[in-house]
């Protein structure tokens, strides 16, 4: 009898820990979702690759790796070094002026003529035309 009692106690004890473990997993999942949604609200979302053409996707990769460090909105308390680039800036300055700036740079920016091909520069411009950062600010 004593043995049975012990076994029943162990069984209940283990079931409880299993259930608690599962619940903790769920609550931490909820916590993660909360954190994720809070972070997403703090930053400017870039268009998902799913909504981009092949050229724009290639442009996004180049832009994120080589340009974004100066040309995307900075985090709070930081300042973007260059102008924040998007479709509004491209429409305002014109495709050709943007291409020329990427190629030859300025006093504050290096020119990418020895690194990026004309096709890659076109891809970056195509991607920028798809960005709508100014409208959301």
């Amino acid at each position, binding site marked *: 009898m*004593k*043995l049975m009692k*012990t*076994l029943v106690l*162990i*069984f209940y004890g*283990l079931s409880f820990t*299993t259930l608690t473990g*599962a619940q903790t997993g769920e609550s931490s999942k909820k916590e993660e979702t909360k954190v994720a949604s809070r*972070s*997403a609200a703090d*930053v*400017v*979302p*870039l*268009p*998902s690759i799913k909504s981009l053409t092949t050229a724009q996707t290639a442009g996004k990769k180049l832009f*994120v*790796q*080589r340009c*974004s*460090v100066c040309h*995307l*909105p*900075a*985090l709070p*308390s*930081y*300042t*973007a*070094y260059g102008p924040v680039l998007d479709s509004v800036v491209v429409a305002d300055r014109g495709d050709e002026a943007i291409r020329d700036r990427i190629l030859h*740079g*300025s*006093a*504050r*920016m*290096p*020119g*990418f003529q*020895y*690194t990026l091909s004309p096709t890659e520069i076109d891809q970056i411009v195509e991607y920028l035309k798809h960005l709508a950062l100014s409208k959301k600010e």
Partner: protein
Amino acid sequence: MSRIELSLALVILLSFLACRPSLSAPADNSSATPMLAGTVRGAGGEPMEGVTVSAATVGGTITTSVYTDDQGRYYFPATHGGKYRVWAQAVGYQAARVDVELNSKGKARQDFTLTATRDFERQLTSPEWLSALPDEKPDDVRLKLIFVHSCTTCHSAAFALQNKFDEAGWKAILARMETINVYGKAGEPPSPVIQHYKEELVAYLTSVRGPEPSPLKIKPFPRPTGDAARVVVTEFNIPSAANPN
């Protein structure tokens, strides 16, 4: 509680714990789970060892990678059925990509042929970039160390050296970099170290990553062989829809 009772309780406890993982793990762990395997060869038909072969479900966030053995063969662990994006890559070669449909049972075979490419700078890792920097003469070693201390404490060498700029371009970058502190905060008083070495750094970077032919000796590291090629890597990709800054 008697000794026998204690032993019995312990046996039940251990058997319960042994069964526990199966409560949460997917039940489908039998020999019927789909398998993916194949070979990777060079353009001349020779087997290629240590090539990374990766597979990710289409639309999924988990990528599994394995390496080919000395016969160029690769095997993935048993996985779930579905549509997979599979690619084989090695530094110095163009990556080969295919979509593979794995049904819920049976095996799929996917062979790859890799073609060598001359334009593979973007595939290089930071240690490969650093070992490519000239260091035969004492002055080369000194400048390499100045570059390492000034630039790679914040940036990876692959990031810092990814672009070729002329002298004016490197000057513009150094002018910016000397005012950024170790936390990435701009508008600080000029860094005395970068300020001191600025001219030399500009000349060095223009020489190794400038418009003229470079003294860099780019040599990809050997691919993994033997036991090192038996590793299975699982990556959990974080969707990059948000501002990377």
